């Protein structure tokens, strides 16, 4: 990769390139997910002490995925990587119930970040291959995802280990980018409104939350800096305290 290549990936991306930030607590499976996306060997993965970057082609896009280490002591440095983010992917270990509150707080803080405002967020409810994994619906409810009004969002259950659900999630990423870039070009008047996505259940991927998605991208304005698109006039900040009453 080299420092120069990192700088090239840092700059504002042309329309056919997408900058994706992969965040989440340590041991959530971010690096496994990254390697799964890049079709690489996932048998020897160690805690990420810095970051990993990989580029993958998907649906006409070049996805530049930045996997950032999630250990507590290096989480304050996540901010280093916010600039020019097109899509945020947040990875949750669905089997680690003890840390649901912690992961909810981190996600809430991310959604509060000015530099990430309006950035579509995909939440991967990872490790669904484990018997003890909480279903995506339960996590969505616990995190009050349905209160997110200021951006497009989606929750997708997956197993980075087996690859199940990963592609569905990335399909949503490409769709949301298409929708966003279409708006950036000034053509996206139709959709409007809040973009709260229905959450996905295991093996039944949800329908796209908006009907304005296009599947092809016509590059215009290369090097145009992505502008955050707020999809609601009245942003509502979600409450991200893990509240057991949601599980009644």
């Amino acid at each position, binding site marked *: *990769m*080299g*420092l*120069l*290549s990192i*700088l*090239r990936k*840092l*700059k504002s991306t042309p329309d056919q390139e997408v900058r994706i930030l992969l965040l989440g607590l340590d041991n959530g499976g971010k690096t496994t997910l990254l390697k799964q996306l890049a079709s690489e060997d996932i048998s020897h993965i160690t805690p990420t*002490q*810095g*970051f990993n970057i990989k580029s993958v082609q998907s649906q006409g896009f070049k996805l530049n995925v930045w996997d950032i*280490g999630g250990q507590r*002591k*290096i989480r304050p*440095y996540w*901010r*280093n990587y916010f*600039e020019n983010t097109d899509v945020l992917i947040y990875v949750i270990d669905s089997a680690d119930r003890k840390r649901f509150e912690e992961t909810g707080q981190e996600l809430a803080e991310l959604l509060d970040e000015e530099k990430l405002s309006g950035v579509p967020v995909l939440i991967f409810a990872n490790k669904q291959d484990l018997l003890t994994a909480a279903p995506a619906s339960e996590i969505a409810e616990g995190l009050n995802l349905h209160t997110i009004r200021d951006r497009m969002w989606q929750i997708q259950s997956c197993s980075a280990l087996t690859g199940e659900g990963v592609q569905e999630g990335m399909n949503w990423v490409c769709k949301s980018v298409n929708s966003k870039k279409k708006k950036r070009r000034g053509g996206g008047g139709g959709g409007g409104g809040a973009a709260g996505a229905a959450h996905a259940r295991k093996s039944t991927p949800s329908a796209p939350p908006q009907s304005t998605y296009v599947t092809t991208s016509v590059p215009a304005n290369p*090097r145009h800096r992505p502008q955050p698109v707020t999809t609601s006039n009245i942003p509502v900040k979600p409450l991200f305290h893990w509240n057991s009453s949601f599980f009644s």
Partner: protein
Amino acid sequence: MKLKRFLLRFFPPGIILEYEKGGDLRTKSIDLLDLTPETNPDELVEEIRRSEALITESRADQVKELILRLQQKQSQQGHHRFCFFKELKAHILPLTNVAFDKSGSRFITGSYDRTCRVWDTASGTELHTLQGHRNVVYAIAFNNPYGDKIATGSFDKTCKLWCSETGKCFHTFRGHMAEIVCLAFNPQSTLVATGSMDATAKLWDVETGEEVATLTGHTAEVLSLCFDTVGNQLVTGSFDHTVAIWDVSSGRRVHTLTGHSGEISNVQFNWDCSLIVTGSMDKTCKLWEAGSGKCVATLVGHKEEVLDVCFDLRGHLIATASADGTARVFSATTHQCLVTLEGHDGEISKIWFSPQGSRVLTASSDKTARLWDAQSGVCLQVLEGHTDEIFSCVFNYEGDTIITGSKDNTCRIWY
């Protein structure tokens, strides 16, 4: 004019004359870039006397002695074998760049952890942590040869100037609209030049901390810059595929060098300021006349992007590093590729000549740095041990110590 004393410069070889003129103490340099151990010292003394009035008959023997010392220094080169000395768990996040001071007794490391750290080379102990940046510390430099100041350029869009002795921050240069990714002190250490992702370069006054000039004209990120040896001109390389030469005193653009068909990865003046070399993502390097801005040669051969390029200190050779995993050494005069350095198992992102010019140091994504014989192209040593790719490497001025900085959050000292 009255000659006061001689100073010796080993790399590149030269004799500095300190003299008095109108009550002021001044210096001038006699560059001996073509000096070899085989050069006849008596003939050289005669040649110097013909062109330099300060060297009178009575000084001839002294000058000859200096030439002999330079030749002796030259013949010492090339036998040092590097040993791993120490791994420093320098930062909690990946390193960016590393740099030595002139004497080599201290070096600095920049990091994604937003700090720059000052290290004692002999012991590997940390002397200072330069804290205050709010994002990645990317570009770093000592104001060599003085070494009393350090400049750091950050993704937080600011550049900071520090006292290298105390670690105190003198100035914060604000004004760039995007990440600062390259910087340099001018040779007099009165100015700092910074290049930014905002497509501009800026000049800052070291003393006052004020902005002196904004160099505008590039239409994309400014990724590399270099002062010439005397500090009159600055060259900048950009992702807009062009290179610009600027007059430092006026801040005006003198030439725009067009011809590359890809982003510029690095730019450098040679020692006598006559040539500029540029490396590009278009897989080539180009040589340009600094005076006219004309392209004099295109160095081809790499199969992938050229990620780094440099002159040796005398300006005789050019080394190029490529994403194709090879490095090449070209002649700066004939423009022929002299040797290809093959062996790395991944792209090469940094390349340097040893100060003597006899060796080449490369850093690669294959987690190794390698040392090569510049003439034969033979790999002399593989510096192994890093557990992730190496982002940066440097020689000290004597050429007997190497620092490698890695994505694995450590740096290594090699003696």
